[in-house]
């Protein structure tokens, strides 16, 4: 199925609105997925993994502050998806970095962390540099890092499969480093036994975007149907009375 960026964006907003996301959060969630896909970073693959669980977040507690000082904070997201909590964590790092030059925010118990890339990009655009690092997986551990310089429009992103043992690895954690004075860059070290490494610099991310703007987005039919099925939850059943509310002519 071939769709436009606007169609994907609007359908995602409906989908998350219907799933109970708040105003502000459902736009964020939609734009996080959309941003990855638009820039060739497999946002729809990430979404397909997240979709079966997204309606469970409404039963979970909101993120809470575990620790905070002037240059750092620890947030527990209680198993929520990054789609509805990571933007606030990045904003907090941003605010602390502006006050103190550099800041670190650690987020625990957060799923789908790749979606942080959109929030990083917003920081770059606003003149703040950010880097993020996280690990993922239960049997095979992958690691990921992304960074953007102050004033840049596109981040870099690397991922690789590690030879780490799953014991002792906190697989749902994420570290954010943010600075108003230092330009942060990040890339995974090749000498640590990593395999299947993927690395995109900001130029490649920009190139992917141009391609999407020109021709739109290809989406798996069943995923598109599922997004729209969920999104139909915001639609009100039609009746003669409701037709009157459209003008009733």
């Amino acid at each position, binding site marked *: 199925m071939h769709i436009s960026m606007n169609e994907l964006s609007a359908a995602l907003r409906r989908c998350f609105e219907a799933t109970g996301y708040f105003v502000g959060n459902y736009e964020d969630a939609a734009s996080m997925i959309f941003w990855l896909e638009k820039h060739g970073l497999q946002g729809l693959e990430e979404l397909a993994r997240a979709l079966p669980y997204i309606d469970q977040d409404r039963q979970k507690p909101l993120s809470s502050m575990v620790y905070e000082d002037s240059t750092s904070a620890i947030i527990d997201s209680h198993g929520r998806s990054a789609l*509805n909590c990571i933007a606030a964590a990045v*904003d907090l790092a941003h605010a602390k970095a502006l006050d103190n030059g550099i800041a670190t925010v650690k987020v625990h118990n957060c799923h789908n962390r790749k979606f942080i890339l959109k929030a990083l990009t917003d920081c770059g655009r606003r003149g703040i540099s950010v880097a993020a690092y996280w690990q993922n997986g239960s049997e095979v551990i992958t690691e990921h890092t992304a960074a953007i310089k102050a004033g840049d429009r596109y981040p870099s992103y690397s991922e690789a499969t590690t030879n780490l043992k799953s014991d002792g690895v906190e697989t749902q954690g994420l570290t954010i480093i943010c600075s108003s004075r230092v330009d942060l860059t990040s890339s995974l070290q090749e000498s640590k036994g990593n395999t299947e490494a993927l690395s995109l610099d900001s130029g490649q991310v920009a190139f992917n975007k141009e391609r999407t703007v020109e021709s739109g987005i290809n989406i798996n039919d069943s995923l598109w149907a599922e997004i729209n099925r969920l999104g139909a939850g915001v639609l009100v059943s039609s009746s003669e009375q409701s*037709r009157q509310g*459209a*003008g009733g002519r």
Partner: protein
Amino acid sequence: MTTPAAILASLRGDHALPLRPANQVMDLERLGSLHQSRLSFMRTLVRRIMKERWQIAPSLLQLDDQGYGTVVYQVRAPHGVFSFVLFSNYLSPEERNDRVIATQWDLTMALVEGTVDDVYLEKLRQNVPRQEAGRVDARVFVLSRANRSARNFDYVVDQLARGEQPDVDRIASVGYLYRTTAVYGSGKLGMADWEKVRTRHKDFARPFAGEMFVCLMLRNFSLMQAEHIARHKSPTRFTPLNPEIKRYFGIGNSTGLGMAPYLVNHPLLINQWIEMRELALARVRTLGHVDDSIKQQLNRLIDRCGTHMAETETEDDWQTDNNSAVRQDLLALKQYVDEDFEGWDALLTWSETHCSLQGQEMLVSIMLELYPELVDELEEFHSAEEMLDLDPLMPLHELKRIIETRYDWALAIDFEVEGARETCWYRSEEKMEPRLGSIADLEAKDKQMALGVGYAVHKCYSQLCEYMDKHANHTTARFMVARPKMRGIVRRIQSMNRCTYGDIQANLLDQNVLPMHLLRCKLAFFGVSKFDPRSRLWVRNTMFQGAPLLEDIGKPFSDDWFMPLAPQQSGEK
């Protein structure tokens, strides 16, 4: 040509021009009183086409004697070649329906990037006539459909076939042959996204330029088709339309609630449009030189607007009263100008105490009309980066101050009063059509769209005050972690605070809200005339009435089709 820096300096700071204040301009009833102006998108599009001498001609004309078939116009603009593709099919009167939920139309059309070959034309033929039920690709910028005016089309064809011109009085009453019922762009149904059009196709890189162009082409096709049918009906007696009468035909438009959510959901863009209109007014008010020539032009325009309003027919009592008030205002204005005119500033101030809102805004449109050298260059600045950004560093006392000053109108509303939250806006399962309902309908209440900005600000303010009782020195970022449900409205408040005009100041949840004001505001920016409300939820109007015809491109152009008048019929004085 002006620059963004010069515009910014005129809008804000020590050297700013005397702009009308936000609480005056953003009042919903005033926004619903706007008229077309020379900054309206139809005017700016036509100006561009005429100045740049676009070459527009049919490259395929396959119409049978009844006017059914396929037509492709090739459009050569300075930065690219485009195709306007139109399918004309028989539609029985019983199937003719202007509602968005209709499934068949007399005409369907598309604006396409590049030229179209037979294979692509066939692909379009399989999809364009189906509209929402079809799919197109990113070569298509705009998709639209139109229905015949039952009142006018056959009459005009019969007149021309008889060798006679249509009666101008009748055209003054209904000034079009077709009415467009939807114009889609911006990526709907697989089309090119606005980002593509804006960044890669300079000819259509202004808001709604592609959509307006399709309506203009529809108008031209409708006139060509009527002549085509009449010619085949009676080859010997047929006479073509007199050019002046032909120019007086516009294209009809039927607009419903869909435009209302757009205004609320694109606040930065709407603010930009309003900033440019108000900046143009402030320029005229401050820099507009007045001499005898300007006074004569002013008098002529006042007369023209009065006649235009007199020629505007509507069955709606409310609009009839408004039109009548505007005519009275124009008479009073003329008298004031004859006796006391000392300058624009004094005239505007006088109008604010002596004219209706629609009369005041008519004066604004007239003032802009008189000074193209101060106004027209602003047409290049109607786009906006539509990103609502959170400012995480903003101290909460600053956020509170902004709400108290920029959103004092929202804090002044008592949302506990009966009826203050009675209305809800929702999307129907029928083509996701936006509809208005009552919160008594629990499903509609539960699924309502977040259009109650005033109420959201009100709630945010009380949560903010409560939070600040304990954490007065926190930043917005910290408030967002603690109150994530406020993220959307805080981001909006902070972003709109960076604008001169900000949000529309009205409670859209009130039981007495008039969506018509929202529709009219957007339609005025488009440049329509002859507002004819059919209820408080939808309005008929006329587009491009008086605009140049395709055959006028390349000829002398006065850009003087503001508030067009019925041409005098042959034999009239």
